[in-house]
């Protein structure tokens, strides 16, 4: 039955994280040097604290030492963290989500035995998924409603050596968490095999090197990862379904709207700041908030936030409950993609509107509002962008089904 009550656990973790953000994250995040987008190093100590609170292992099942949070809870926590600092949110949600995918769903017992103890024990044990490659064009674009497939190409190879080890060669880019990850899940092509595979590669594997990005147009830290005759044991290969499981981490669609919750958190931070300022700042003898123009603007921002949250929560819950689409409680549409387009467009506008209320203070690089605007823009323009997402949504609406590669090959024969 339709029910919007959050569970006691959800309410509690939201309060806990909100409190952590207020007490610990905000004082660091609001320092001028951190607000300046030109030099934003990850606050490792806060990440350690968050890890001790269980936020690094939020989605990991309880059996394995995590909090076992469901998709909705992960989105609630992400919003709260991002209202404090988008980079902290991105870092934690990436590790937490990959932790769940890898340890709960992709690894064999033997693999878990090797990696889980370290992951559970070390607050700095972060995870990264190295999927994307240089010069891969994944945009739908000209292939909209055309039978040509637009799929990521994997050129990084893994070859089995005589001693059974895998030897990896290739370069991955856009890798979130790359500079801090202790373990990478790497998408590879094994010559002679049609489907792509995933290998577990510890950061200290010989032949692996990371080049961190400066000021990337992404949240958290990121970098390129180069594999040069990088060797890992034979046992590091994940099962065949791992590639598909992990691919959703990058592409919006029917996945978990974690990055949309991040964008919402950024918008809320801007809104909260603007409401506070509008109470304090006096213009024409009255606080700003008592002016129609400012009140109206704040109302418009509030509407954007509430509507986006309803949309994100719906997508989050749906990604955990495919049965609700099957029984037609929810539409058979890519709800995460809808949340992505809507939220990112709305938060870009919301942060700008909030900043306008601050007057000259709203244009300063070392003040919060410009940081929020920048963070919202990153959410809007990373990846393939909203124009491409709309084309993908349009194909779903049209009921267009692109022939698979195999079908194309058969047709071509």
């Amino acid at each position, binding site marked *: 039955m339709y029910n919007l009550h959050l569970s006691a656990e959800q309410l509690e973790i939201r309060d806990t994280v909100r409190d952590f953000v207020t007490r610990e994250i905000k004082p660091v995040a609001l320092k*001028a040097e951190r607000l*300046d987008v*030109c*030099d934003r190093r990850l606050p490792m100590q806060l990440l350690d604290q968050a890890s001790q609170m269980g936020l690094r292992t939020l989605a990991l099942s309880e059996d394995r030492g995590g909090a076992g949070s469901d998709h909705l809870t992960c989105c609630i926590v992400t919003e709260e963290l991002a209202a404090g600092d988008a980079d902290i949110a991105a870092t934690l949600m990436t590790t937490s989500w990959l932790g769940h995918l890898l340890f709960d769903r992709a690894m064999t017992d033997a693999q878990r035995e090797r990696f889980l103890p370290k992951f559970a024990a070390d607050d700095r044990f972060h995870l990264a998924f190295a999927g994307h490659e*240089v010069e891969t*064009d994944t*945009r739908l*674009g*000209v*292939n909209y409603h055309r039978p*040509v497939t*637009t799929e990521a190409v994997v050129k990084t190879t893994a070859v089995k050596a005589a001693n059974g080890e895998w030897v990896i060669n290739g370069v991955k*880019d*856009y890798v979130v968490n790359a500079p801090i990850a202790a373990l990478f899940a790497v998408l590879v092509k094994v010559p002679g095999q049609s489907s792509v595979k995933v290998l577990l590669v510890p950061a200290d594997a010989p032949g692996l090197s990371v080049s961190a*990005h400066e*000021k*990337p*147009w*992404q949240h958290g830290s*990121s970098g390129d990862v180069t594999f040069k005759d990088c060797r890992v044991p034979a046992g590091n290969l994940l099962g065949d379904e791992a590639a598909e499981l992990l691919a959703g981490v990058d592409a919006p669609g029917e996945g978990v709207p974690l990055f949309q919750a991040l964008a919402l958190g950024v918008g809320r931070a801007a809104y909260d700041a603007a409401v506070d300022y509008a109470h304090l700042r*006096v*213009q*024409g*003898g009255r606080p700003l908030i008592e*002016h129609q*123009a*400012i009140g109206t*603007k704040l109302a418009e921002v509030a509407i954007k936030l509430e509507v986006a949250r309803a949309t994100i929560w719906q997508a989050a819950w749906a990604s955990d409950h495919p049965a609700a689409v099957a029984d037609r409680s929810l539409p058979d549409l890519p709800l995460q993609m809808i949340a992505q387009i809507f939220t990112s467009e709305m938060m*870009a506008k919301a942060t*700008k509107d909030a*900043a*306008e209320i601050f*007057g*000259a203070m*709203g*244009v*300063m*690089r*070392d003040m919060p509002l*410009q940081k929020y*605007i*920048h963070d919202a*823009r*990153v959410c809007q*323009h*990373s*990846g*393939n*962008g*909203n*124009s491409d997402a*709309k*084309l993908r949504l349009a194909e779903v609406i049209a009921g267009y089904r692109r022939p698979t590669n195999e079908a194309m090959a058969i047709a071509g024969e």
Partner: protein
Amino acid sequence: MDFSLSNEQRSWQMLARKFADEEIRPISLACDAIPTARETFDWEIIKKGSKLGLRTMAVPKKYGGLETDFVSQALVMTELAKADSAISKAFSQNWKWSHLISAACTEEQKERFLKPFVADDTFVLGKGITEPGAGSDNRLPPDDDSKPGLKLKAERHGDEWILNGEKAFIANAPIGKLFFIDARTDPTVPLKQGITMFLVPSDTPGFRIGKVFNKSGWRFYQNGEMIFENARVPHANIVGGVNGAVSKTGGEGGDTTGGDLFGDLELCANALGICDDGCQSALRYAKTAQQGGQALFAQQHVQLKLNRMFMMTEALRSFVMRVAWEHDQKIHSYNAGLAMNYSTDVVQDVTELYMDIRGAEGRYMDHHTDKLVRDSFIWSHLAGDSVSRMKVTRRIN
């Protein structure tokens, strides 16, 4: 109706375009990238531009200036902004206040200040109105309350006035040689009737510059704090009489071609330059960048974005040129204000569409694209906030 340019206007446009292409564009991104706000400024470009007349083009010929018309000024601002909006503003800010000198200063003041201004390639002007606690209150003060608005106090002591207080976000503060400073000389009356404008040279005793603001856009263009601690200004430096500041600066009902109202034209002409840059960069990108084996331009969603960019830009150009012409005709209207408000919407829409077309390339956003978007946001605060818009609406009647 005639949209063509005179030979003189055309030659100013060409001169500015050449200077922008050859001198400004090559340094634009490097200046923008300098992390420390105080260090983004480059005197060399000011000196080079000044030698071409770009610092003094608004000064009357009789004082050694070039006395260009407003149409030429609009053309030049646009051309310079096409290469760097902040550098364009660094030049035009001087015209703004040389308009004010021409319109409001006595002959004696002109002699004392305009002549050295013309003679010195590094002589830069500014005006201090905004204070930490009073921004929009100065622009749209309530009629029935004397308290809101600027607080900097000036008290007369014989032939001198003693100024105490602070100004914030003042353009050119860190580099200017001469400033117009609005100060309260009668705190008992509403703002418009109780402020006096002073000419304050940068070496005035008791006057100093505080911090330089670290803006997200317009990095090159310096805004700073001004601190007045018993600063002493001669009575002879008063512009337009005691308590007479507003009527001289082009506020409601005042002179509409100098001072503040030039600022409306300035902002929309500058925005137009950013839009031109955005449109041309986007078109070039769409024609060259490939996706799926075709130029991006082949895609309908790209065509629709380009359409909107060019459409809004050409609407803005039409409006800007009309406003410049109206200024030359000394026509009083609300059009300059509307064009300024409008330029906010256009410059942000155009640059954001450009960012949309480009998207993040791999892991980074193109620096130039990002700069255009950041520079454009300045308009939210200067030209397009609700106070700016309501102020203009109240001129419509």
